[in-house]
């Protein structure tokens, strides 16, 4: 078992240091790059917090939709094949809801400030 602090705590501490202590003194293109770097650390923190739960829920939905089990990536490959050959489409019960939920869960990690995401959060 690895000791504390957790990866999330470490990354947060680094991101906060860069954001609060370093960023105010950096100018020009490096300021832009630093912002991208801090955004990357924040993204990793969100993924560490959220991915386990959303991946499990996604796998459960896929199992239901496909009537099959396997690693998440294989389930996604199987769904892709079925969409490509028309075996499932937006009329298929549960498909639209599955794609929406999966995409919302990705945005929650990737870009929670994206305007389309914020708009859709207000819907069911």
């Amino acid at each position, binding site marked *: 078992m690895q000791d504390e602090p957790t990866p999330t705590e470490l990354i947060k501490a680094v991101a906060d240091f860069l954001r609060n202590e370093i960023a105010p003194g950096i100018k020009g293109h490096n300021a832009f790059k630093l912002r991208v770097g801090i955004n990357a650390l924040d993204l990793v923190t969100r993924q560490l917090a959220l991915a386990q739960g959303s991946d499990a829920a996604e796998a459960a939905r896929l199992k239901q939709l496909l009537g099959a089990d396997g690693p998440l990536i294989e389930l996604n490959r199987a769904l892709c094949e079925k*969409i490509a050959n028309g075996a499932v489409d937006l009329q298929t019960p549960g498909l639209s809801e599955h*794609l929406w939920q999966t*995409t919302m869960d990705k945005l929650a990690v990737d870009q929670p400030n994206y*305007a*389309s995401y914020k708009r859709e959060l207000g819907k069911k």
Partner: protein
Amino acid sequence: MIEGQLARCVASWFPGATGITGAARLSGGASQETWTFDVVHPDGNVGAILRRAPPGYGASPGRAAGLDAEATLMQLAHDAGLPSPRVMHVLRPEDGLGRGFIMQRIEGETIARKILRDEEFARARPILARQLGRVIAGVHGLPAAKLPKLREMSATKEIADLEREYRSFNWPRPVFELALRWLRQRDPGPSQEVTLVHGDFRHGNLIIGPDGVRAVLDWELAHFGDPMEDLGWICVNSWRFGEIDKPVGGFGTREELFAGYEEAGRKVDPDRVMFWEVMGTLRWGIMCCGMMQRFRQGPDHSMERAMIGRRSSETEIDLLRLLAPREG
């Protein structure tokens, strides 16, 4: 260095020029560079831009129209009275600067967030969509006989290209599959009218001033095809920068864009525009995935590239908003 070569080059075609100053690299990868500089002249300095593939980078990659074609198109647009820089010089081998051209530098803003938020552009924003409709109609109407050789694209070819590229990533994306299927089923077939298509008509490639659009740049992706493609591309949500209720670049409505287009004597097919908006959204998503591939394979191991890979999910939510909208 480049200053010396540029000064010698400029002296050979610019009467009275005594040198150049302030050369600075703006952007671009290894195969294509953009430089800004001033021509020093007794009557006052003249702002100029060099766009070039350095010596050793001859052929234009993949889809690119090529720098010679870009120069021709820019000059044609300028001659037709469209907002476009004047081409001052097309590079010759004896210039020793590689392939490319030198054009007039036009002052203004290309950064979307400033154009959409700064007070300076408050008067421009309400008129831009209509203006851009007229401008892109002018581009589509450029005289066919004078146009350079360019690739010809159709919806069918574009779908196949996108699909091939997406499959090459070997990473399953059910929403992209849904979009590909939607596009294949609604492929409108060959356009009745095939015109010059700019190919990248959006924020970043438009110089905007307080008075409105001043120049259309970057003809790298110009081709022949369905003119509705350009109208769909500028409506893609990725170019709205948060102003999602203003489909045209975050500043205007489709109706304004279409009105400007039709004022210039051309016809809009709104269904085809919507088709190309879906295509464009998918295209940007696949381009984001491509950036991530290049990040992995190197040599550009940059954070920016890596993080753009995480923006492809933005196009997935936008595709779902287009193809499977929810109530509420």
